[in-house]
């Protein structure tokens, strides 16, 4: 990409909604979600280089009624390993 595309308001709406809905379901506020996200990143990035831009956190309702937290963390490159 040569230029940064400005995020459209439709996408903003979609992302906000996703966050709101997942915190609605989990019963915790967006602030706490954000904090948790940052702490998890902090821990993981001690060991691996993560792509913070492409991070995705969400709650999922499984068909059996149980909820799970899904974290999709793209890895840039494992730390300490060199490519030759």
């Amino acid at each position, binding site marked *: 990409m040569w230029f940064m595309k400005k995020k*459209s*308001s*439709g*996408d903003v*709406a*979609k992302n*906000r*909604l*996703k966050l*709101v*809905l997942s915190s*609605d*379901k989990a019963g915790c506020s967006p602030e706490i979600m954000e904090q948790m996200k940052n702490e998890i990143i902090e821990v993981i990035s001690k060991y691996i280089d993560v792509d913070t831009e492409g991070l995705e956190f969400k709650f999922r309702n499984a068909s059996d009624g149980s909820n799970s937290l899904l974290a999709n963390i793209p890895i840039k490159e494992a730390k300490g390993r060199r490519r030759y």
Partner: protein
Amino acid sequence: MGEVIVVTSGKGGVGKTTTTANVGTGLAKLDKKVVLIDTDIGLRNLDVVMGLENRIVYNLVDVVEGNCRIKQALIKDKRYNNLYLLPSAQTRDKSAVTPEQMKVLCDELKNEFDYIIVDCPAGIEQGFKNAIAGADRALVVTTPEVSAVRDADRIIGLLEANEMKKIDLIVNRLRVDLVKSGDMMSSSDVEEILAINLIGVVPDDENIVVSTNQGEPLVGSDAKAGIAYMNICKRIMGEDVPFMDLTAKKGFFSKLFGKKN
């Protein structure tokens, strides 16, 4: 044996009543025997949208309280002989009817009609509980706005908790121009967030305003919203109808040359 379909949304003003009127009229157009039930006690609307307000003698509360027989309260539509309305009471409140009474009523109507369409009031209180009590399936109506989608999500959760067998989504009042410019969530965005089956997308259409003013649902007309509602009816009946291209312009030449994708 008929099917009871509840039309619900959580948020007010997204088009539940318009959807009820159009889906009901559309199914009647497709030769099904249909009855519409307005469960918004105290704030009735479906009668004016259908243009039947001047025929009301008895209402839903009269039926459940036994002041009249069901048949006496059913109002035959102006245009279709196989379409009826059971209006709500204007001068009572929601507690006048219980979910158990609604279930009994729906079960009774199932013997007589192919489809019973229940217009649900906004909110998640008593009126909502009444509306879904006897329903076999639900149509959740939302607009592509954060507030409406969030409420729709809550409603879907409640419907699932009440073991609703089938829940379908209608995205109403979609503005194609805004979706194109990126300033409105698309129907697939909404579908992705709510993760239930999308049964129809109705474009924002000024013809709806005109039809509501006249008290004649526009389903089946060649207005875009009219086509969209008819497609929803066919899908409700189990037909596999492809989603129409809302971006296409109306008219002969555009039909021939307009589409590029």
